[in-house]
């Protein structure tokens, strides 16, 4: 039996464990150690400066959604570039042509949303 391919995850697991413990321990410690004296001023969002108005739960404008959504699509494009990058030499011009066709298609999409004004914040 070969050594398990899961071994390299050990440092990651340790990091996660430590950070998880920290995240759990700190609020608990703060709860027991910290003094708590609530007052009206303290419960406001900003203790100094102008008084905050309205609910914190304001609706986002849809234009932000369109940007977030385009982020996802281009995120997927990037994800497809990683496996190409590690095989770049072996794939040569063949792979280059494949990725060029892929990227060209998405470039049409980028040109479309850009000119459409879907990326503009101030509209």
């Amino acid at each position, binding site marked *: 039996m070969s050594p398990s391919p899961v071994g390299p995850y050990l440092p990651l697991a340790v990091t996660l464990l430590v950070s998880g413990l920290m995240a759990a321990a700190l609020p608990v410690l703060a709860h027991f150690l910290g003094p708590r004296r609530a007052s009206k001023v303290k419960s406001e969002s900003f203790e100094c400066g102008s008084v905050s108005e309205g609910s914190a739960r304001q609706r986002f404008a849809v234009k932000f959604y369109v940007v977030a959504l385009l982020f996802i699509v281009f995120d997927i494009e990037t994800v497809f570039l990683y496996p190409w990058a590690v*095989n770049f030499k*072996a*794939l*040569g011009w*063949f792979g280059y042509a494949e990725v060029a066709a892929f990227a060209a*298609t998405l470039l*049409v*999409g980028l*040109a*479309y949303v850009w*000119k*459409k004004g879907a990326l503009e914040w101030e509209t």
Partner: protein
Amino acid sequence: MTLPDLTAADLQPVLPALVLAAGASVLLLSEVFLTTASRSHLALIALGSSVLAGGVALATAFEPAHAVFQGLAVQDPFSSFVTVVVCLGLAGVVLLSADFLKQRQAERGEYYALMLFAAAGMSLLAMSAELITLFINLEVLSVSTYALTAFLRRGPRPAEAAFKYFILGAFSAALFLYGSALLYGVTGTTRLADMVGPLRTAMHTQPWLATCALALVAAGFAFKVAAVPFHMWAPDVYEGAPTPVTALMSAGVKAAAFAGLVRVFLFLGRADPEVVALALSALAVLTMVGGNLLALPQRNVKRMLAYSSIAHAGYLLLGVAALFPHPGTGVLAATPLMLGSPAVNSADAYKGILFYLLAYTVSSVGAFGVLSVLERHADGDGATAWDLDRFSGLAQRRPGWAVAMAAFMLSLAGIPPTVGFMGKLLVFRAAVDSGLLGLAIIGVLASAAGAYYYLRIVVYMFMRPAPAEGVLPEKYWATELALVASAVAVVALGVLPGRVADWLSQSGMFFGTR
């Protein structure tokens, strides 16, 4: 790593999809870069691309079947003909859309681009021979259709219809995918051609697992083709979507989904033809009977056509069931289909399915076309926009439309001398030949019941007086062009099906049947 050597021969089968995708890109770019007042060029670009893509597909339709892209896809006459049918339907739908959108001041490049994307997905779906490729192409067409359904934003209906369509589409995609994953586990491959052998073994060693996997894949497709009992989304979605988009769903999406269904089950069905044939037959009976019965009480013509589309899926399923030999008739022993050698009667079944798809495409595009010119912009999205009374006395006000609509209704009802009759004849004959006599009888009875609601429209058009204060519907040249073309096709193919049926006989050269 060995690089695949791609030649022009590999690219040729995807040429129709490339043409459609290129047309869509041009539309998108012209939408944002050309800011002219007139927007009629958009429909022309879309029409041009669909005709060109259909022509390219037709030119390759007679090449012998072969695998391309290392077995992920196949090119055979079947896939080419499905692409031709899809492009034909698309061209008709584009013509309907031109007037429909102009009337609503909603002419947008995106609309046509999404239609072309959907058609590209359909064309690729028809040739996919590997489960993941098939899944992705199915999604290309689904995602485009979801967006098209919500394209018009007047009133709550389109958004709701799009949402229903989306959720059930995503659900059925998940069923299909889970079934594919299990099939991959059982057989160790996702390529349909390589699955047959291992799956046949698995049907004996792990019958439960293999059957569940097949059932999940079948359920995924049953949702897409709106087979009873997976049909509940169809009436609402068909009614809520813009009428030309509904036409695309009933013509293109249905044809492509059936192409995928035939492709998958023709391979996988060989693992256990009896079980698959039984399941398809059961689905066919439920869908034929259920679709027709549900359509009977509908006064809303758009909703009635939605149920009618379900019923037609039933007849097509009967054709698919006829691809398999049936137990208890002795055919099973005589047909060496199980061994993958030449299938005696399946060529007739392919011909039936393809001819039926063609017949249904031209008839339903025409019927939805008449519906789209009768519904007025002012109607908003009230249910009365498609009420049967709209058709009262149409023969006096617009005799041309009434005659065309009568032809489409006769064709959908399967009454000669229309293409719908020929389609039903071919499908039912193939069913009888493969031992499905009982099912064919049920099909004939169901379509006889269905004739009632189709002929009711004809009665309304020709025998009811026109409403006194009725507004004369406007004339639309593009839609009328589509109506004339499809009416001529309905009658011509019904009277002289010879040439096309001969072409379709060639589609017996289905990849994998050898």
